[in-house]
C-alpha cells in the first residue's frame, strides 16, 4: 500500500513494514510495558541502541523520526526540571545545594528525573516507529481484529474501527473544504493573517460553522452510499485482505520477548548474577532509589 498522503506513514518495503499489523500492535504494547521496568542508564542505553537499530531497519529517514520526537522535547525538559526541583533525597542523602531550603537538589533526584526523560524518549521513539511503518488503514484493521474478543461483551468493535477509518478517510476531504471556505471568506474580506490571537480566533468561527453544516450533509450522503452498497453492519461481512501471521512475525515476537526478559533480569536479578549486583551499586547501572552511590 502506497501513497497515503496523511498521517506519519512512510512508504517503504522494509521487514518492519511487512510485519503483520496486529503483531506490531502487540509488540508496541510489550515494548511500552518493558520501558517501565527499565531503571538504569546502561539498560536505557541498550534500549536506545535497539530502537535506533529498528529505525535503520525500517528505512525511515532518521531526521523524520527525530522530528516526531522533537514534539515532546518540551514535555521531557519540563518534567526533568520539575522532578529535579521537587524530588526529596533518599534516606541519609545530603543535598547538593547544601542547607538551602529551596531549591534542594539531590543527586538521586537528578538521576531519577533523567530516567524519566529517557523513558519518555524511548516510548515516543518506539510508538512513532509503529505509525511510520503501518498505514492508518492497516492500523484500524489491526485494532478491529485485535479487539474482536470484546464482541463477546457486546462492545461494538467493528463500528469503532469503521468510524476510525471513515474519519481518516475524511481528513483530506475536510482539509480541502476548509481551504475553500477560508478562500471564500477571504474574498469577502475576512482577516486571517492578523497577529492578534483573539481576532484570529474570531475569524475562524465563520469557517467552522459552514464546515460543520457541510459535514452533516456529507454524513447523510455517506450513509446513503453505504446503504446502497448493501452495508448492514459487521454481521455476515467478509474481508478482501486476510491477515495471516507468518514466520517473521513469530521471530519478531521472540526477539522482543527475549529483550523483555533480559530487562527483567537486569532489574530483579533472578539468577543472582554478580555483575548485576555490582552494576546496581554504581550510579550508571543502578536505580535512583538506592542509597547514594559511594563513588561520588
Amino acid at each position, binding site marked *: 500500500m502506497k501513497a497515503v498522503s496523511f498521517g506519519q506513514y512512510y512508504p517503504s518495503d522494509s521487514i518492519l513494514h511487512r510485519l503483520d499489523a496486529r503483531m506490531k500492535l502487540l509488540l508496541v504494547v510489550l515494548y511500552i510495558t518493558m520501558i517501565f521496568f527499565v531503571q538504569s542508564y546502561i539498560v536505557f542505553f541498550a534500549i536506545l541502541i535497539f530502537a535506533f537499530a529498528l529505525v535503520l531497519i525500517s528505512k525511515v529517514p532518521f531526521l523524520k523520526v527525530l522530528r516526531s520526537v522533537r514534539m515532546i522535547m518540551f514535555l521531557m525538559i519540563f518534567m526533568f526540571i520539575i522532578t529535579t526541583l521537587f524530588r526529596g533525597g533518599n534516606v541519609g542523602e545530603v543535598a547538593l545545594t547544601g542547607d538551602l531550603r529551596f531549591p534542594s537538589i539531590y543527586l538521586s533526584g537528578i538521576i531519577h528525573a533523567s530516567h524519566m526523560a529517557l523513558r519518555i524518549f524511548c516510548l515516543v521513539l518506539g510508538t512513532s516507529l509503529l505509525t511510520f511503518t503501518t498505514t492508518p488503514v492497516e492500523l484500524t484493521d489491526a485494532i478491529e481484529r485485535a479487539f474482536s474478543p470484546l464482541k463477546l461483551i457486546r462492545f461494538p468493535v467493528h463500528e469503532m474501527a469503521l468510524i476510525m477509518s471513515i474519519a*481518516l478517510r475524511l481528513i483530506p476531504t475536510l482539509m480541502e473544504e476548509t481551504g475553500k471556505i477560508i478562500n471564500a471568506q477571504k474574498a469577502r474580506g475576512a482577516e486571517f493573517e492578523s497577529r492578534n490571537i483573539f481576532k484570529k480566533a474570531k475569524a475562524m468561527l465563520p469557517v467552522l460553522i459552514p464546515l460543520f453544516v457541510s459535514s452533516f450533509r456529507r454524513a447523510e450522503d455517506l450513509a446513503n452510499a453505504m446503504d*446502497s452498497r448493501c452495508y448492514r453492519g459487521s454481521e455476515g461481512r467478509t474481508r478482501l485482505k486476510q491477515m495471516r501471521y507468518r514466520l517473521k512475525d513469530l521471530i519478531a515476537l521472540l526477539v522482543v520477548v527475549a529483550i523483555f526478559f533480559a530487562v527483567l533480569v537486569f532489574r530483579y536479578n533472578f539468577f543472582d548474577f554478580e555483575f548485576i549486583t555490582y552494576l546496581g551499586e554504581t550510579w550508571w547501572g543502578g536505580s535512583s532509589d538506592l542509597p547514594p552511590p559511594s563513588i561520588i
Partner: protein
Amino acid sequence: MIEFKNVSYYYNAGTPEQVRATKKLSFTIGEGEFVALVGHNGSGKSTVARLMNGLLIPQRGEVIVDGNLTSDNKKIFDIRKTVGVVFQNPDNQMIASIIEDDIAFGPENLGLPPEEIRKRVDWALESVGMSEHKRGTPFRLSGGQKQRIAIAGILAIKPRVLVLDESTAMLDPVGREEVLKTVMELKEKEGMSIVLITHFMEEAIKADRIIALDKGEKVLEGGREILSMSNELDRIGLDAPFAARVAGKLREKGVSLADNIYEIEELVRNIM
C-alpha cells in the same frame, strides 16, 4: 425489472412542512434497457433514485424490484444487490482511503469469499478503466476518475440495474464524456439496465427511452422524438439538445431537414 405503481412520496410526511416529491408516478424499467430520467431541479428525480433501491419507501403506491416490494424489510438486501445507485458527489461516496479497499466494501458486505472479492474488485476497476490506480488514493484523481471509482464500487456488487443519480452533474465535459462512455460499454458488454438521471438533455440522446418529470409527475415518455419537442421541454424548464434546437429553427425558416436530428454530427451531415 423495476416497476413503479402510482408512487407518491412526501418528505416530512405528517408534519406542517410536508412536501410532495413524487405524485402518482408509474413506469417500468425493462431488462437491459437504457432509460433516461430527465427533469429540472426539484422535479423529484433524485427522490426516484432513492425510491428505486429502498432508501426511501413511498407512502402511497408501490415500487417493485424483480418481484419484491421495496417496503418488505426482509427483501431490502436483495433489492440493493439488484439495483445499484451511484450518487452525485463522488467524494461523499468513498468509504476507504485506498481505492481497492473502497471497491471491496460492497462485495465484503455481501459476505463473499476473499478470492471472489479480489476477482470482482479487479473486474470492476478493469470495466471502468482504472486498474492502474488500484493501490492509490482517490484524493488526487480528477472528478471524472473519482466518479468512475464510485461506479466501480457499485459494479463490484454486480447489480442488474445501474442507476446514476446526477452522477455527471459535478463533472466537466471531459469527465462527463468519460463516465457516459463507461456506462454505455457496461450496457453493451454486461447487458445491464441503465437508469440515467440527469438534467442535461444531451446525455439522454443515447437512451432507448426517455421519461420527463415535472413537479414529481411524469409529463412525457417516449423515444428520442421527445428531444425535438422544444416547446414542451421549455415548459418544464429543460433545454432540447443543441442540434435539435438548431434543426427546429432551420425548419421554421423553411429549410427542409430530416426528422430525427439530435446530435451535432447528424445535423452537420444533413446540412452538407
